[in-house]
C-alpha cells in the first residue's frame, strides 16, 4: 500500500483510474455532485427503468447532470447547508452516508451518467465492483462522521437540483479541493470490504465454535 496522498482531479481519465489501487489515499479536486437514496431512485424510475413519462424539467436536469458528471464522481452525502433563505449556500457539515443502500442502482447509474467514481462510506457490493472493472471506475471511501473537516474541502456550492427532495437528499453541485478519501474498491477487481468481511467472518466462526 502506498500512503503518500495521490492528487487526482475530475474529470478522471481511464489512465488515472487504472493507476488507483485499493489502499491508496487520494486528495480529490474538481466538481462533483451529491446524490443518495432519493436521487438514485429518481434516476432509476425516470431514466433506467422508466415507470412514467419523464417531465421536460426532469429531462433537462438529467441532460445537465450528464454534462457535469461525464468522467466525474457522485458523492453519497446528505449535507448540512447554511444559507437556505438567501440561496447563498454554504456546506457546514458534509461527511459520507452509507453507500450499500445504493447497491441495487449504482452500476446502472454509473453507466447512464458516465461516472468514473463513487464516493461514500462502508463500501459496496459485487455489482458495483463489476461495474468498476468494466467502466473502468473506482470507489472512494471518505471518513464517516468527519463532516466538518470534509466540508472545509468544499470551496463553492455551484448549484442544486431536486431540492424538493429535501436538503439531505437534493443533488448539490459542489467544487472541492483536496477532498480526502481512500480507494477501497478499484478497477482491477479488488475490494478491501470483501477482504475484511471474509477475514472477520472466519474469525467469528472460530469465536463461536
Amino acid at each position, binding site marked *: 500500500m502506498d500512503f503518500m496522498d495521490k492528487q487526482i482531479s475530475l474529470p478522471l481519465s481511464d489512465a488515472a483510474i487504472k493507476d488507483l489501487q485499493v489502499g491508496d489515499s487520494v486528495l480529490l479536486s474538481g466538481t462533483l455532485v451529491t446524490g443518495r437514496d432519493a436521487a438514485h431512485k429518481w434516476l432509476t424510475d425516470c431514466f433506467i427503468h422508466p415507470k412514467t413519462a419523464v417531465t421536460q424539467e426532469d429531462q433537462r436536469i438529467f441532460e445537465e447532470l450528464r454534462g457535469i458528471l461525464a468522467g466525474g464522481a457522485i458523492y453519497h452525502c446528505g449535507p448540512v447547508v447554511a444559507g437556505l433563505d438567501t440561496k447563498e449556500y454554504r456546506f457546514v*457539515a458534509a461527511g459520507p452516508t*452509507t453507500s450499500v443502500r445504493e447497491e441495487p442502482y449504482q452500476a446502472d447509474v454509473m453507466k447512464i451518467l458516465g461516472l468514473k467514481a463513487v464516493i461514500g462510506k462502508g463500501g459496496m457490493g459485487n455489482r458495483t465492483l463489476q461495474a468498476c472493472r468494466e467502466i473502468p471506475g473506482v470507489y472512494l471511501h471518505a471518513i*464517516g*462522521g*468527519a*463532516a466538518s473537516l470534509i466540508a472545509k474541502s468544499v470551496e463553492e456550492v455551484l448549484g442544486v437540483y431536486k431540492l424538493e427532495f429535501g436538503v439531505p437528499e437534493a443533488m448539490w453541485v459542489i467544487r472541492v479541493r483536496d477532498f480526502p478519501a481512500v480507494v477501497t474498491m478499484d478497477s482491477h477487481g479488488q475490494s478491501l470490504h470483501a477482504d*475484511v*468481511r471474509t477475514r472477520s467472518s472466519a474469525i467469528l466462526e472460530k469465536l*463461536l465454535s
Partner: protein
Amino acid sequence: MKDLTPEILELIRRTSTDLPADIESRLREAQNNEAPDSAARKAMDTILANVEMTRRDSTPICQDTGTPLFFVKHPDGWKPRDIRNWIRAATAEATRLTYLRPNAVDSLSGKNSGNNLGSKYFPTIHFEEIDEGDLTIDLILKGGGCENVGAQYSLPDDRLNAGRDLEGVRRAALDAVNRAQGEGCAPGFLGIAIGGDRGTGFIASKEALLHEAGEKNPDHALGALEDQITKEANELGIGPMGFGGNSTVLGTRITSEHRLPASYFVTVSYMCWAYRRRKMIVHDDKVTYT
C-alpha cells in the same frame, strides 16, 4: 415555570458539536492502537482532527444529526406538556442555526418537514416522573448509519447456536458486529438489552448508551460479559471505518429487562464513534451541562 427553550437549544448545540470527554479519550486510545501509516490510523487521525475542529467552530461533528433522542426525568412541578413544547421549539431553532440537519421525512410523501419536527416520535422524547431530585434532560443524537445496523435476535437462534443464556447473548452481539462491518462508522459502542418485548428492548438498549464509557456495571456477570464482547469484537479485525485494524468496538453496556416466558430478545443498538451524548441538569434556577 421558566421557559427552558434557550437552555435546551444550548443542550442540542453542545451535543451536536462537542464530543464527550470519555468518548474522545477512548478514540485517542484507539488511534494509538493502530499501526502508523495504516489506513485505520489515518481514519482515526481524521476523526480526531474533526472532533477538535467542531468543538472550536461549533459545527456538527457529523452531518447526520440523527433522530434527537431526549430522556427527561422530571420531579413534581414540571409539566411534560411544557417540556415537550420547549424541546420541539429548541429543535426547530437548532435546525435553523444548522446545529441539526433537517431529518424528519414523511414516510408516505417523502417530504422533509425542514425543521426536524415530525409525527409524535420525531423528535423522540421519553418522560419519567421521579419522586425527588432535579429536572434532567439527556440527549443522544444517533445517526442513520449506525441505527440501520442495529439488530434484534430472538433466542434460541439455531444458526448461531445461541441459547437463552449469557453465552447466547455473546453470540448474538458478535454476530451483529460482524454483520455491521464498517457501516455503522466503527469504531463504535454497543448498547445491549436482554429481554423486554421488541419495542422496549430497543428503548432499553438505547438507554444503556446513556452511561459513560467504562462505567462499572452493578451486575458482575454482565460487566464481565461486556468486557468479553468488546475484546472479542476487536479480534474480528474490522477496524476503523471497516478498513481492517485493531479497534472495532470501544465499549459495551448491557442491561437486563423482564421478559415474557415465551420471549428472549437480545437487542443490540450500535452507536457510531460520533457518540453524541449530553445532559442538562436544572437545579432551582441554575442550569448546568455535563
